[in-house]
């Protein structure tokens, strides 16, 4: 039943987006620009690590052709604007919506006149109005796909237990991971009595980060967990849950550390208070930096093929990229594990009950 639905969903998705794929593969007018190889590599890496308004699988720069599909652009700018990102033609044309004109410049949307005039300041930054942007970008699209995938996988896993004590299908692979997160992350760090209410968050965050890290390793060119806005949102969730869970003892350990001389309490209070913010900040930076660095290094090594343009360089690049990809597979799981473990640790600090041992 579940797999039938999955097949139907994927078929419809492929059909819908293949229509857009044809629409996108039209040839663009104009003379193709001549890039030197290093600039092209740099642009290709930048394009890969940045979020975008369309989903491009690959491009033919010589013919100026892009193969992929458009995504919806949703703007709030003195009214609601909804149009397809294909209207931008990859930043080459001005998009019109409800009498207003928008231009894509350095992956950001600005309101312009009908000619697409951008006024730049001394730092070459546009001073045009930036509308409130709620667009379904490539990153948002992948987040949705991951959400649907997780829902299908884990609802299927939960339902399979209704038929017997053993999980079926993909659940057989995921069940031990869920048990590992419960028994080796949540229970020891949060405590036997309180870990249960944090399990939904810990499991969601682990699989969400892991799946998105794995999607980042595919040739789809997605880099969601290497986007600081995404890791910021995840870290904020951990921060809010930690602070909301914090009991009297947790706050006492921040503002008036027990068991230390009074002058030390005054020194420790601001440090501990800073720590409240530094912990989620470190979570955010750690995940972002690891994934971003992995993508840049891997792409750079693949690019060696085009720089050397001989069989030694090609073979070297292939081997390095292969081994680095294997390490990145490990990093994908490791970063998800670290994020989950540290979140559990912070929840554990927040709910920990202190007894007489504090009065030393």
């Amino acid at each position, binding site marked *: 039943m579940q797999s039938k639905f999955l097949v139907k969903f994927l078929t419809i998705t492929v059909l819908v987006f293949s229509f857009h794929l044809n629409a996108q593969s039209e040839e663009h007018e104009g003379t193709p620009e001549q890039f030197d190889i290093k600039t092209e590599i740099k642009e290709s890496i930048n394009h890969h690590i940045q979020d975008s308004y369309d989903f491009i699988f690959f491009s033919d720069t010589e013919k100026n052709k892009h193969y992929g599909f458009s995504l919806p652009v949703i703007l709030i700018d003195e009214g609601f604007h909804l149009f397809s990102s294909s209207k931008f033609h990859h930043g080459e044309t001005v998009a019109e919506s409800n009498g207003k004109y928008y231009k894509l410049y350095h992956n950001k949307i600005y309101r312009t006149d009908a000619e697409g005039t951008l006024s730049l300041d001394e730092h070459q930054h546009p001073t045009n109005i930036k509308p409130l942007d709620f667009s379904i970008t490539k990153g948002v699209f992948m987040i949705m796909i991951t959400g649907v995938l997780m829902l299908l996988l884990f609802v299927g896993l939960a339902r399979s237990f209704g038929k017997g004590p053993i999980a079926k299908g993909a659940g057989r692979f995921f069940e031990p991971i869920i048990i590992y997160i419960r028994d080796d992350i949540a229970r020891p760090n949060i405590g036997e009595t309180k870990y249960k209410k944090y399990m939904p968050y810990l499991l969601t965050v682990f699989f969400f980060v892991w799946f998105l890290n794995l999607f980042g390793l595919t040739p789809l060119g997605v880099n969601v967990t290497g986007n600081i806005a995404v890791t910021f949102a995840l870290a904020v969730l951990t921060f809010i849950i930690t602070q909301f869970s914090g009991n009297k003892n947790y706050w006492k350990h*921040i503002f008036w550390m027990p068991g230390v001389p009074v002058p030390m309490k005054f020194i420790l209070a601001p440090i501990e208070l800073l720590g409240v913010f530094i912990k989620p900040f470190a979570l955010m930076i750690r995940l972002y930096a690891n994934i971003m660095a992995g993508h840049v290094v891997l792409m750079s090594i693949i690019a060696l093929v085009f720089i050397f343009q001989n069989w030694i360089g090609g073979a070297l690049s292939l081997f390095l990229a292969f081994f680095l990809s294997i390490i990145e597979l490990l990093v994908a799981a490791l970063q998800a594990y670290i994020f989950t473990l540290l979140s559990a640790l912070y929840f554990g600090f927040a709910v920990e009950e202190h007894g007489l041992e504090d009065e030393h």
Partner: protein
Amino acid sequence: MDSFSKFSWTLIIVLTIAFGIHIFILDQLELPLFDNRIIVAYLANCFLALAIYLSLFLLKNKMSEQIGFLYMGGSFVKFLFFFIFFYPSYKLDGGLDSLEFAAFFVPYVISLILETLGVIEFLKK
């Protein structure tokens, strides 16, 4: 005297002294004395600190476990207040200069320290 009255008097006295010192320094440096909404900033910080402390005082038994969270929430409300009511007027001339920053954040830090000491008293009980 209950802890709220004690806090109120301490806050008003300390902020008045800080305001006097602030104005004295501005005068010595021959800078405009009452620019940058300095009076409004001191009054707003004083009232917000009193409101936050009163909330903590009233909820200290009912929500004793979440007292620190309420305190952090109060600080967030003050930041929000700054960004809604003060920041736009400070930004009108282009940017937030050091005088504008000091006009809001000197009373902010003073009331924050006093609030923190108040929270510590609640946590120790």
